[in-house]
């Protein structure tokens, strides 16, 4: 067993050195109304298909969920700036550029679309999801604008195991692997430079840079302890060895690992539970970055509230994501779930640097 582990470690280290030039990217994630609406405080309340990329300890549940099809779509950017884009006169280049400038040097503009199918329950979670992401921001405008177009197909599978520590404390520990194919194109200085040339052929450029996907197998581990009085605590380590190598991309890509911790309280509302079933969650994300001084604790603080009401037909979310307010709601109509949420996440070094708002909707056909 030791030999196998040693061989595995050697292979991973060798693979990580295949291509010297590496670029940091965000973690695989599908933006959902539930996580957005709760200010991204989710690891201690991970449930259903979100467990596949939030906290694998959530696989240890008696509740089964089959996502026949989940479709999520989000628009990223500052709402005021983005609505100005609707007034663009495409025949007037000067007007077009004047409208784009405040958007791209401000919060930027982007989108996230996710779709997939999954099964979660009885300690196991499996699914296949496609996450399409794009985002553009930077200055000076237009030469300094940077961004990316990223499409990742991820086959996810994991397991969680319960440990009954005492009569009132149960610890669940889980692991999920996400073998993923990533097609990614950097929108950088080279592309901007080429695009400013009159002979620029966008089709050829895209074919050359994003024809072959890179491949990686990120791993998440997580634990959740459930205590008496509806209290719970969770800890996750995400993106262990999240390196995507190979393919036609200029770079190998990696997502830095992160340590996240949180807690939740789901008070027993007894006879009123059918009417109102609240859960309050608090989470600190990227604790390793906070300890290293690379991120502020307030930016990484997430507070969320989930109110399940009317026999689970209507759910309302509210939260603070680094202090930015978030709201959302969901309607459960038998197998059809409709959800919408609005929140803001800080993309910059400090709160106030670059708040990026996010309007997200979900339509899913789900049996749970």
């Amino acid at each position, binding site marked *: 067993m030791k030999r196998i582990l040693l061989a595995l470690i050697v292979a991973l280290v060798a693979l990580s050195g295949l291509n010297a030039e590496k670029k940091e990217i965000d973690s695989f994630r599908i933006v959902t109304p539930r996580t957005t609406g709760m200010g991204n405080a989710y690891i201690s309340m991970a449930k259903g298909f979100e467990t596949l990329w939030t906290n694998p300890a959530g696989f240890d549940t008696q509740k089964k969920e089959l996502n026949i099809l989940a479709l999520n779509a989000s628009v990223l950017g*500052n709402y*005021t700036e983005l609505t100005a884009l609707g007034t663009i006169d495409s025949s007037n*280049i*000067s007007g077009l*550029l*004047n409208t*784009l*400038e405040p958007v791209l*040097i401000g919060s930027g503009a982007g989108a996230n679309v996710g779709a997939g199918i999954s099964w979660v329950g009885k300690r196991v979670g499996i699914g296949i999801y496609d996450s399409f992401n794009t985002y553009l921001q*930077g*200055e*000076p*405008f*237009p*030469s*300094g604008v940077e961004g990316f177009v990223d499409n990742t197909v991820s086959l996810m599978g994991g397991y969680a195991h319960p440990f009954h520590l005492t009569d009132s404390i149960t610890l669940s520990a889980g692991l999920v692997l996400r073998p993923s194919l990533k097609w990614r194109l950097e929108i950088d*200085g*080279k592309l*901007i*430079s*080429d695009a*400013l*040339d009159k002979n620029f052929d966008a089709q050829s450029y895209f074919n050359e840079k994003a024809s072959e996907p890179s491949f990686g197998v990120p791993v998440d581990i997580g634990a959740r302890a459930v205590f008496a*009085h509806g209290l719970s605590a969770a800890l996750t380590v995400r993106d262990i060895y999240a390196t995507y190598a190979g393919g036609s991309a200029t770079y190998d890509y990696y997502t830095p690992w992160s340590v996240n911790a949180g807690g939740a*309280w789901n*008070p*027993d*509302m*007894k006879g*009123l539970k059918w009417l109102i079933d*609240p859960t*309050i969650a608090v989470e600190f994300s990227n604790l390793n970055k906070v300890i290293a001084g*690379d991120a*502020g604790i*307030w*930016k990484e*603080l997430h*507070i969320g*509230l989930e*109110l399940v009401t009317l026999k689970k037909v209507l759910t309302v979310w*509210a*939260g*603070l994501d*680094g*202090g*930015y*307010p*978030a*709201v959302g709601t969901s309607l459960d109509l038998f197998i059809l779930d409709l959800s919408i949420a609005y929140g*803001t996440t*800080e993309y*910059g*070094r*400090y*709160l*106030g*640097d*670059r*708040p990026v*708002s996010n309007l997200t909707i979900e339509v899913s056909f789900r049996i749970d």
Partner: protein
Amino acid sequence: MNRKIASTIIISILLTILLSSCNALLNPSSFFSALDKPDTGALSKMTGTKLLDALADQHGSKTFYEELSDSEAGRIDAELERLQQSGDESVRSKAALAQVELTVMTNPVVRDTINSIADLLIPDDHVVMDTAAIVGKLTTALDPIKNDPAALAEFLRDMSKISESYGKVSTGTVGPGDMQTFMVAAVFATIVDVYPGDMDTATVALSAFLVNPNAPLELTLLPVSVDVQAFQAKITGAAGKVLTLTTLAHLAGLETLADTITDALTGK
């Protein structure tokens, strides 16, 4: 008891969120932003490569540059000036690039001017521009200060400083944004150059152009001894400021962008 506590907490959170969400929709601001600020005082007292590393960590942070007091910015600027005399090529280049960012981020008019040249880089095929029209485009962001000699002088000084700083960059990571920033700064630095040692007259000339942008440049912006062709040559001629752009383009691996930017700012 459990239900009472839960209800109180839930109602408090909901009320807070609801009251703030309308404003947040249009203009998101964090309740915690006052708690998440850089220690500008400590950073401004740093020296040497420690300062360069600390500034690299703050790269692009609007909050950091907004929080810097004038005296802190002055201390950092003086140390960066000193580091640009270093015998170490890497230190010299890093200090020069850091000084450019400090100058751009602490002068909103400089920043707006550099961001306002998109329609020169992506021109409308139907519009032909001469030098006066190009300078007119470059000075759009100066409108609010056109009658403020002190602000105009500071603007010209900052643009000259940016142009000079880029001249000391010979290694390191440079991007297309640096090329755009340099070339805009180079145009204004050339206005200063044509009035050697006389910033006051350069400021008056720029003010005269802003007040009367349709008059020939020789009657407003340029001294009698320098015509438009000579002015252009100081930017794009064999010994002109374009040489620095060529160095930056080489470092960035973006030689074709250098041509695009040069053409845009000379009306070719």
